[in-house]
């Protein structure tokens, strides 16, 4: 600073060699320059040059020889797949950073109360050391749809089967018009009537054990009787009539309906017969209970078009929550104990203290975690590539992913790719400003 004022008072005559003081300054700059040179060269060539070049490239066509003004941006904002990418980016940004921060906070607070906190921290932190690609493979194994193969769907099936039995005849259909699509015998019944509930599309394997020849029901006064049977004999037979060689279906639940209410249920015998006794009047219908036809639990399509982004976000939480927990945990242990003690002595409940004291004191740490996650989420690429099957990539895509896809997956649309990258950079700008500002405060 002093040297500038000296120089202002005694300006150097043009053409004379630099004064010794100036030479000293150049030497003084030469020293830091030699320390900074390797970093400066690398940053210049690998970060600053490409940033400028990408923005310039965004205004040229895909081959790079024609200046096309904003054409690439027009293409970008009118492309339905890029619309999906932007929509997914919004979902990611709204969901993932908040979820990671909130979950991390919860776990950080809870781990303060357990003895094995350090073990849990290592377990939750571990995924951070694994490549996102391997994390993707891990979750693709978890998300396999077949309940025999995917662990998540297998667990869901266990839960599902506790509450809902699998049907005896998942694929059966009515054999004739006498039975409706909802398996109701179409004729209204009165006491003494019979119901013939013929079903087809039952493979021999599916016929329940103990099944015997079906028996044509006999009219019984004061009762409704009927039979439920496999209305199929080799050679075909006549639909709707019980014939020789056709088996009764045992163990099927039959509902007796009046109006739309089920007023009684019966279970079929080995020959398929059933009976509702003590019936008077008319206006009844008979139905094979819908649960007979319940499909076995098929599992959730985690990797299908509609769930793919939530599925990838779950995998992301698995990798990131440990980071949030450790950072927030460090912040928690830095809160002076006497502040919390004072709040307790003043009679604050734990929840009040948490909301009024802990959270405000943690705010800087929470902000750091939140912002770090925002930045990470905008860059996400590996997880999408590894988890989304090729056929649903267009449903899972984000801007960072689409930038790669348009430029490098064989499409070679460098103009469009550069436009996406430039737009992405624009989204990063607020974070850049935030970083610079928070660091200037610390200088």
């Amino acid at each position, binding site marked *: 600073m002093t040297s500038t004022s000296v120089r202002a008072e005694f300006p150097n005559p043009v053409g004379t060699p630099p004064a010794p003081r100036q030479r000293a300054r150049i030497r003084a700059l030469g020293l830091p320059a030699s320390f900074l040179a390797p970093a400066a060269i690398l940053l210049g060539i*690998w970060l600053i040059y490409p940033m400028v070049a990408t923005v310039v490239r965004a205004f040229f066509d895909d081959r790079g020889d024609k200046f096309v003004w904003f054409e690439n941006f027009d293409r970008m904002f009118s492309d339905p797949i890029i619309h999906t990418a932007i929509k997914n980016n919004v979902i990611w940004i709204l969901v993932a950073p908040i979820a990671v921060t909130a979950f991390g906070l919860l776990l950080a607070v809870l781990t303060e109360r357990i003895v094995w906190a350090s073990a849990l921290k290592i377990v939750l932190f571990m995924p951070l*050391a694994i490549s996102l690609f391997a994390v993707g493979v891990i979750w693709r194994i978890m998300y396999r749809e077949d309940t025999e193969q995917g662990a998540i769907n297998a667990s869901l099936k266990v839960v599902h089967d506790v509450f809902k039995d699998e049907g005896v005849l998942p694929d059966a259909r009515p054999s004739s018009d006498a039975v409706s699509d909802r398996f109701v015998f179409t004729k209204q019944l009165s006491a003494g009537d019979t119901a013939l509930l013929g079903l087809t599309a039952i493979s021999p394997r599916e016929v329940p054990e103990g099944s015997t020849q079906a028996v044509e029901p006999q009219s019984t006064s004061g009762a409704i009787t009927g039979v439920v049977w496999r209305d199929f004999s080799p050679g075909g037979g006549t639909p709707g009539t019980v014939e020789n060689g056709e088996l009764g279906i045992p163990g099927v639940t039959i509902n007796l309906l009046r109006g739309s209410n089920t007023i009684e249920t019966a279970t079929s015998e080995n020959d398929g017969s059933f009976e509702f006794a003590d019936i008077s009047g008319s206006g009844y219908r008979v139905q094979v209970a819908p649960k007979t036809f319940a499909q076995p639990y098929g599992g959730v399509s985690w990797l299908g078009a509609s769930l793919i982004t939530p599925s990838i976000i779950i995998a992301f939480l698995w990798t990131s929550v440990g980071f949030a927990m450790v950072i927030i945990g460090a912040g928690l242990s830095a809160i002076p104990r006497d502040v919390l003690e004072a709040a307790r002595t003043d009679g604050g409940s734990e929840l009040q203290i948490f909301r009024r004291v802990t959270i405000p004191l943690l705010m800087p740490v929470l902000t750091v975690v939140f912002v770090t996650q925002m930045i990470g989420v905008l860059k996400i690429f590996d997880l999408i590539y590894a988890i989304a099957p090729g056929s649903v990539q267009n449903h899972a895509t984000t801007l960072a992913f689409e930038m790669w896809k348009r430029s490098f997956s064989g499409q070679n649309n460098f103009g469009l790719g550069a436009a996406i990258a430039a737009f992405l950079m624009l989204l990063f700008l607020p974070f850049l400003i935030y970083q610079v500002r928070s660091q200037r405060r610390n200088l």
Partner: protein
Amino acid sequence: MAAAEVSQPAMRSDATFRNRIANAPVNFFLLLIGIAWLVPAAGLFVTSLLPPEVSNAEGWWNVFSNPSELTFDNYSQLFDNDQITHALFVTAQVTIGATVLPVLFAALAGYALAWIDFPGADLVFVAIVGLMVVPIQMALIPMFTLYNKANLYDTVPGLILFHTAFALPLGIFLLRNFFIGIPKDLMEAARIDGASEWRLFFKVVLPLGLPAIAALAIFQVLFVWNDFLIGFVLAQDNTPIAPTLAGQLRQFGSNLDVIAPASFFSAVIPLTVFALFQRYFVQGLLAGSVK
């Protein structure tokens, strides 16, 4: 921390007992969380040990009723696969190069920014902090073109230099902030004794900055070893392990005997580094994010 732990046993025992009861649900909940975190990783490990006809057809948990199915065959085949062993070799080379270089360059720059007084130092530092946010996607197209012209495409040096450059902003940030905490008296004393800046850097700053340097190095080993995108775009035959496996994703479900052991093995090295140097890594993260 230590003080709080010491004072615990002094608390009245009925209070401790009540705490234990209140903590039972917390312990249970956190146990579930721990299991939820371990199961997916265990799934990959078990899958990697199953013969293809088993792993491709049924769930890995069936192994608990039939443990005789476990085999190391997948792993021995993995190491007979030239493509995979070459990829692992490339990954190791890139990781070493892209850890040593950025640590060295970031230490030099960090030292200059922390301890050499020159006009504009703060401005340079703030600019570097800004560069921390720049996404890799921003550099891909121009560098892909440039690499093809400069014969750096598909080379180990090309990958090392790219990683080095992108590691520098965080590295300089971490090290500058750590170096600036070295006591001023120490530096002044060394300067008065006539030590040159270079001597000061190698004899005082580097040894004292070792914790931060270790943290950065570990962070960098994990980051480079685990990279997918850079190797995927800038190499073809000399790709690191993750991009090498990318092609396998297409037949996912029929090739678990290849992709599962390869993924698991590729995770073993960073996991080991993490387990051994966990403390440094966490400290580095803390230094980087909680300022």
